[in-house]
């Protein structure tokens, strides 16, 4: 199910916690699995649960509780735009409209070519630099303008 590299990364996470608390690594393990496979399928979640000796339903609870996990396939580039109040005050609405118009999709949708998925995000703890977005969960782009968004989208293959 997962590559030796991913399993090694999960093992590193497991090592952070007391041996009887492997479950503590489930958030990292799901993240690592998602990075390798693109999204979290039922079987992936079950695999991770078994790997950490925890009930599958408990792993599924985690996967559905934290909103950076993708439980359905997403585009190659997931763009999560924060639209919360500070970002909104700093122009996130305009960026949201621009993104949706440019990609022809709404929040929660993926372009037909599978290149982009657009998501609306909650506070990312970087409000002073808004408007901002996350690219594939881990790379943040700040102080967005319509021009910088255009450039960004072009760079995303």
């Amino acid at each position, binding site marked *: 199910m997962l590559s030796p590299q991913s399993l090694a990364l999960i093992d590193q996470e497991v090592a*952070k*916690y*007391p041996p009887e*608390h*492997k*479950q*503590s*690594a*489930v*958030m*990292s393990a*799901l*993240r690592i699995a998602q990075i390798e496979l693109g999204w979290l399928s039922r079987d992936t979640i079950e695999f991770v649960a078994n790997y*950490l000796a*925890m009930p599958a339903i*408990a792993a599924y*609870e*985690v996967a559905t*509780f*934290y*909103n*950076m*996990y993708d439980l359905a396939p997403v585009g190659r580039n997931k763009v999560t735009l924060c*639209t*919360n*109040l*500070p970002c*909104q*005050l*700093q122009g996130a609405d305009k960026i949201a409209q621009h993104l949706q118009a440019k990609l022809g999709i709404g929040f929660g949708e993926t372009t037909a070519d599978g290149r982009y998925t657009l998501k609306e*995000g*909650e*506070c*990312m*703890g*970087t*409000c*002073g*630099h*808004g408007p901002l977005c*996350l690219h594939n*969960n*881990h*790379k*943040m782009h700040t102080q967005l303008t319509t021009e910088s968004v255009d450039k960004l989208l072009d760079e995303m293959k």
Partner: protein
Amino acid sequence: MSLNVPNHKVCSWTQDYDQPASLATYTAHGGYEALRKILAEKTPAEDIIAQVKTSALRGRGGAGFPTGLKWSFMPRGYAGDKYVVCNTDEGEPGTFKDRDILLYNPHQLIEGMLIAGYTLGAKAGYNYIHGEIFEQYESWQQALEEARAAGFLGKNILGSGWDFDLFAHHGYGAYICGEETALLESIEGKKGQPRFKPPFPASFGLYGKPTTINNTETLASIPWIMRFGGQAFLELGKPNNGGSKLFSVSGHVNKPGNYEVRLGTPFAELLEMAGGVRAGHSLKAVIPGGSSAPVLPADVMMACTLDFDSIAKAGSMLGSGAVIVMDDSVCMVKALERLSYFYFEESCGQCTPCREGTGWLYRIVHRIEHGQGRPEDLDELLRIGRNIGGNTICALGEAAVGPVASFVKHFRQEFEYHIENKRCMVGH
């Protein structure tokens, strides 16, 4: 500016140097000296706690609980493992100060956690980092490796015979994990649902073991306090409000960003540091302590000083020091709609009033914003809010109600206009 010369920049001083995050920069300016001294002198835990109490350091995460007092709750003679946990799950809209500590001053946090671990007799420490700032999660882990390589972490730290280790744990998109017991659940690999208290974490914390949880800025302030003494820290601020504090200024200002100022500084000064409101606009309202804090109208806010007591007196709270500035272009209904959506979206769903009530609040505000408000809606919002507030397991219930109640209280005519005219007073 350093940990060799006292200055009001407790946590942000490294930004005055090139490579602010490096171990070299930190150690070149007094970093890890407090730890060295404690380990060399085997400073008794009581002495350290006494210094922290003297400093009047209050939790920087939002609740403002006295840190020294919190530390004194940890059981002393406990035979099993104990833990120190740092809360960097910074997701309260408006707050972005802890991110900068990870980014620019990671070692001061590490040193602070080490001193806390030593003082509280902990076996290990975990730093829970907001999922969306994953780059800072990775960079802080690198800082840990640097510290480990330099002998500050692991077995026999600095030859003292003391073992302690630190780890980073990342969130993955759940505001509620900023609540300390939800955070513990999350570290345990579960849904981040707050625990009811009692028992408190000091007796039943991570893995059921005694645990102390402090905010990032709180822990990062500890090395400063141990270098220069609790009294010096207290004197940075004012009585009962010791120290300086990072304020995250966002919204309608010219220079949004973090500003570290002494507690007790007039709000007007902070506003000026942040470049003031945009040209051609006037200040309308300020949320002074993160989105959960009640909003204050401009005139009230301009009369406040930045400390826990002054803002509480004005009817809001200093919270995490997140100052959201709104100028006269803001539609308060729309602003509240976004905040109400946030609490609805982020309610963990565990307890009834919050699970059911936050959705109810949001749907009513949403209707008003979209021209379908009814005259009875405003009183209904307040009534529902009263049934949520105080009746939930954690503070998210109150956090969701705070904005609703204060927006309606201070800007009621704007809401009434919306209901009556099915459009916005501000011209959106």
